[in-house]
């Protein structure tokens, strides 16, 4: 039993970051309909910037903020420079353009920081507390706390604020919202900037655990995308739940089924969920209605 609890607890901590990644995915998708495969690379960029700023002597917390800002900037630049001409084009054009951005970001990271793996210290100690026979470290606690705070703020912003409402409306009918004084273009920019900031944050949070390598972004993108889809594309809450579900599932699968096939088990579960519930776990009705 304690093994089970330990696997779940560790999964929740790891999944929180996937959830953050997924939330950024969902937000960008919700407003623009574009799936951003450079999301993980923006996260890595944020992490590398965090690394550099930390290296210049700034406190880790400040460095992480710099990473968040860098992520936001990258998201905004990408929206302005690459995606803007593509909104009226088929889905696949936007997606492939983000793949192009991913390639560009990877090579920029490699040119600036080199390919040698780098590391970043944790925001908090990784010496674990012991609760019964379950270990849980301050670093994991910080990670979880940041995720909860950020996602709560994000959910509030999307649900309750004027701009959040605009984003949701824009996702459903970008043609009509201009009649209310909403500029979809500005909202797209905002969405990608916020998504980029979320990615940067996720990058700064996850690198103490995984270290920095230029091409790590791809696997982060895949994780974030899976989390967002499982949770229901477009739902921030869903993305967080989806991320945690994936991590817990992987952990349980590697303990009780097979470590090598843990990912396959997780994917199988996702496919099954999608077959039963087309809109994902928490996706809104709109997802079943929307055709691309």
């Amino acid at each position, binding site marked *: 039993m304690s093994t089970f609890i330990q696997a779940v607890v560790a999964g929740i901590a*790891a999944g929180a970051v996937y959830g953050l990644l997924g939330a950024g995915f969902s937000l960008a998708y919700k407003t623009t309909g574009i799936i951003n495969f450079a999301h993980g690379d923006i996260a890595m960029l944020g992490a590398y910037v965090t690394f550099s700023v930390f290296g210049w002597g700034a406190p880790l917390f400040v460095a992480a903020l710099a990473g968040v800002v860098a992520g936001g900037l990258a998201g905004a630049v990408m929206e302005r420079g690459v995606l803007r001409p593509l909104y009226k084009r088929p889905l696949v054009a936007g997606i492939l353009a983000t793949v192009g951005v991913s390639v560009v970001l990877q090579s920029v990271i490699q040119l600036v920081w080199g390919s040698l*793996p780098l590391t970043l210290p944790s925001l908090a100690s*990784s*010496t674990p507390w012991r609760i019964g026979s379950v270990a849980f470290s301050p670093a*994991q606690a910080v990670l979880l706390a940041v995720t909860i705070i950020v996602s709560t703020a994000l959910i509030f912003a999307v649900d309750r604020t004027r701009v959040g409402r605009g984003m949701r409306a824009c996702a459903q009918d970008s043609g009509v919202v201009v009649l209310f004084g909403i500029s979809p273009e500005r909202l797209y920019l905002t969405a990608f900037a916020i998504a980029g900031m979320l990615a940067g944050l996720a990058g700064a949070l996850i690198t103490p*655990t995984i*270290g920095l390598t230029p091409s790590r972004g791809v696997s982060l993108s895949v994780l974030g995308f899976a989390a967002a889809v499982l949770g229901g594309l477009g739902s921030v809450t869903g993305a967080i739940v989806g991320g945690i579900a994936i991590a817990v599932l992987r952990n349980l699968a590697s303990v009780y089924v097979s470590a090598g096939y843990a990912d396959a088990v997780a994917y199988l579960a996702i496919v099954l969920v999608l077959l039963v519930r087309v809109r994902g776990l928490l996706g809104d009705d709109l997802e079943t209605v929307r055709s691309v």
Partner: protein
Amino acid sequence: MVSHIKWAGAAMVGAAALAAVGCGGSDKTSSASDAGSANAVKVAIVQPYSGDSAYYGEYADQAFKLAMEELGSTPGGHAITFVRGDSKCVPTAAVQAGNQVLAQSPVAVMAPACSGDTLALKPLLKARNVSACSINLHPEITEANGKIVRAAPSDAFTNELFAKYIADKGVKKIGILHDTSGYGQGNVDTLVSSLEKNGVKVAVNATYDFADTDYSGQIVKLKKAKVDAAYFEGYDLAAGNLVKQAKQLQLDVPYYANTNAGNDTAEKAAGKSLDGVLFATAFLADSSDATRKFTATWQQKFNQAPNSDSVDLYQCAVVILKAIEATGKNATGATVGEQMAKVSAPGVTVGTMAFDASGDLNDPPVLIGTWKDGKAVLVDRLSGAE
């Protein structure tokens, strides 16, 4: 549905085209032309130059740079041109890169740092009759009368000694985590068989993916199996991350690890968690006069600490340059290869590098190291003279 006529038509296209080929006959490409002028030779460096392992390419270039400064840049009067292939640490890319650089008839090859790449290259080397120097640890890299010499100890050799060392420590039941890379598989296969020979039970032998970000599931699995020791195999970052996460999840048993746990990157990733982890390696900066001297030189020249990979690559560079030097005027893949097999050159991890019939180092070094206060220190020397 596509009509049957269409498919029949397609078959006709195929048949007719084949007939066209038959009439034309096939001209065979001339393979491996001569090496060119007596003075200029090409040396191929097939390494990952892009992607996550691109630093190996950088190490290889640095290794040759240093070796040429120390041994002269024109061994035996041959001006050396380097042809580079990007193996990306992906075996099929290595085949592709190998095909492309071998088409330029190099006299020797610096084999890729990733075992899988080199394994994939082996048939090409044979076909082109070119020899390579490798730093791979995978046991199947070398073979009797093969085309590869290895400037590092084989994992088969290292792990036989390491397994006995682990058994002597009183370990009865061990859990192993390793990645699915070619190196990881080879490393663990040899370790497992040696451990079992020494009466150590391998309770868990789980894998993780190179791209994984979280190993908690696997580590919890070790906890569940109640092992009394853990062995972590992983490339630099993973080696450190595994140890750190295991400590975080309170897997309170002695840890053993492969050579990468002795790299600086691993230490940076894991910090103090690595203290006390015992790893088997061929190189420790502080284990002999030669290694200390080499470390100082490398550090000063390239502004970074050398690790077992950069040392081994340097040794390979030395072997290749020495072999070219010994060849005399007629340097071809075949003649340089002959010289590589019987080279006798000063090494860093071993006093003198010389190879046995299958291309493995004579008296290869096996050191047990650990981390203490941010420094890798020698615990024991299981093989190899200073």
